[in-house]
């Protein structure tokens, strides 16, 4: 086995979404990479999803020595290690009246933690997602709460409020939007935002980042929305437009790996969730896709 592959056991011992389930149907054997390990996936003759590692040539669908597989939220998840828990829960996904849509799987030339940190950031909305998720002069990130819980092991940022001209495909105008962010996995985040249709419930947008290497990822985006007007294409394209705006910002961050030393980059008050996230990664002992702080 090549020595360049991931040797961060903490990172290895997590589940990773590697492809939307819909992409597997009838497509034969497909290939991707997880933490520098080439892997292949397909349905076998019993119609089960099979994922396996290989070194260059995937061969036929094997009947043993396969990786563990979970099918969750419309994606195939696997692991190269031994995760302590199952894939984290997103209970809203099972609600009958929600539209669960795979928005996109995009490649981005950046580390996984940079993608998550950008996902958590509200400060860039007016400047990067101009006239959609923000607009000048509504640039203030108001005080919000950040909690790190142990059981479940996740970060929750709540009471986030931001004025948005076009918060979702179903929006009809500007609105103050409430956000809650969960980070239940070092490279995944789940966002809850006010539904334009039902003020008592929230739309869910989740990002599941599959690290190809320390500085290249595949980002899988799930939408679980209350929307009875737009078709799937409109909903997807809205989200793709948002992500397409983030992409050049992400790819122009240097260093591409996330520095965990608190002195490496200068945070402002709006970065409260990012500070908690970096500390959380440090405490977990994550070394993949980051620049660990000096001991």
């Amino acid at each position: 086995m090549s020595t360049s592959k991931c040797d961060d056991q903490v990172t290895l011992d997590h589940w990773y979404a590697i492809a939307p389930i819909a992409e597997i149907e009838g497509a034969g054997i497909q290939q991707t990479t997880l933490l520098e390990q080439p892997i292949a996936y397909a349905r076998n003759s019993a119609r089960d999803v099979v994922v396996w590692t290989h070194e260059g040539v995937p061969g036929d669908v094997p009947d043993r020595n396969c990786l563990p597989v979970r099918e969750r939220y419309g994606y195939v998840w696997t692991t190269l290690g031994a995760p302590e828990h199952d894939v984290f829960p997103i209970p809203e996904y099972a609600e009958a009246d929600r539209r669960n849509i795979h928005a996109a799987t995009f490649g981005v030339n950046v580390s996984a933690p940079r993608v998550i940190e950008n996902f958590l950031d509200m400060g860039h909305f007016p400047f990067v997602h101009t006239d959609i998720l923000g607009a000048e002069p509504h640039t203030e990130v108001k005080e919000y709460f950040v909690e790190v819980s142990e059981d479940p092991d996740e970060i929750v940022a709540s009471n986030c409020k931001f004025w948005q001209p076009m918060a979702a495909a179903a929006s009809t105008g500007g609105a103050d939007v409430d956000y809650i962010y969960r980070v239940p996995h070092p490279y995944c985040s789940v966002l809850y935002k006010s539904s334009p249709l039902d003020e008592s419930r929230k739309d869910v947008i989740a990002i599941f980042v599959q690290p190809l290497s320390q500085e290249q990822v595949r980002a899988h985006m799930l939408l679980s929305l209350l929307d009875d007007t737009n078709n799937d294409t409109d909903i997807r394209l809205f989200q793709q437009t948002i992500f397409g705006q983030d992409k050049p910002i992400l790819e122009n961050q240097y260093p591409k790996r996330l520095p965990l030393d608190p002195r490496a980059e200068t945070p402002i008050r709006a970065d409260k969730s990012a500070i908690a996230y970096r500390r959380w990664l440090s405490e977990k002992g994550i070394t993949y896709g980051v620049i660990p702080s000096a001991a």
Partner: protein
Amino acid sequence: MLKLYDYELSGNCYKVRLLLSFLAIPYEQEMIDFYPGKQHKSPEFRQINPLGQLPVIDDNGLVLRDAQALLVYLASKYDESGKWYPRDNPDLLGQISQWLAFADAITGTASAARLHDALFYAHIDVVKARAAAHELFRTLDEHLFFAEEGGQDWICPGDHPTIADIACFPYIILSEEGGIARIDYPAIRRWCDRFKRIPGFVVMSGVFPAGPAADDRAKVAVPGQ
């Protein structure tokens, strides 16, 4: 009304949106689920374009495909100033056609590298695509440098941009998404900034507007005046 079969993240569709915006032509968009739906490869869409490619326009029954062809058609038909595609100037038309072909080569290299990196087009030899894009960028950078030396702002001579500028701009400005840096092409970077300041310029996802510097400079009161 003119209809554009469109996909937001497509640079070729962006070329058409740019010209329509510069000319202030109203149009309706039919959004195609290019990814992940591959709607452009569906039997229904192949009735509209047998090649299964975007963009396509339907102008009151005239259905046309190919970004460069659409620029030629739309400018010829709707640009009353005649400046974007000067039909009565053979010298300029020859040069515009030459750079339209060049723009297609940029699509075949810089856009291909972007598809490889962002949408996992595994069959593309990305190293080769990037190297070929750099060769094209070097050629254009030199051309623009000498144009600037001669007091020219645009790819083809004259005091107004042409559809050659529109055809070249999208996949140059998106090149970094395919791992093709523009740091070594200062004349291209200056041209991109000028392009973004053409009245009617619109962005697409992944392209940001020019800073307000040029406007501000005009507004700043000169001391003593």
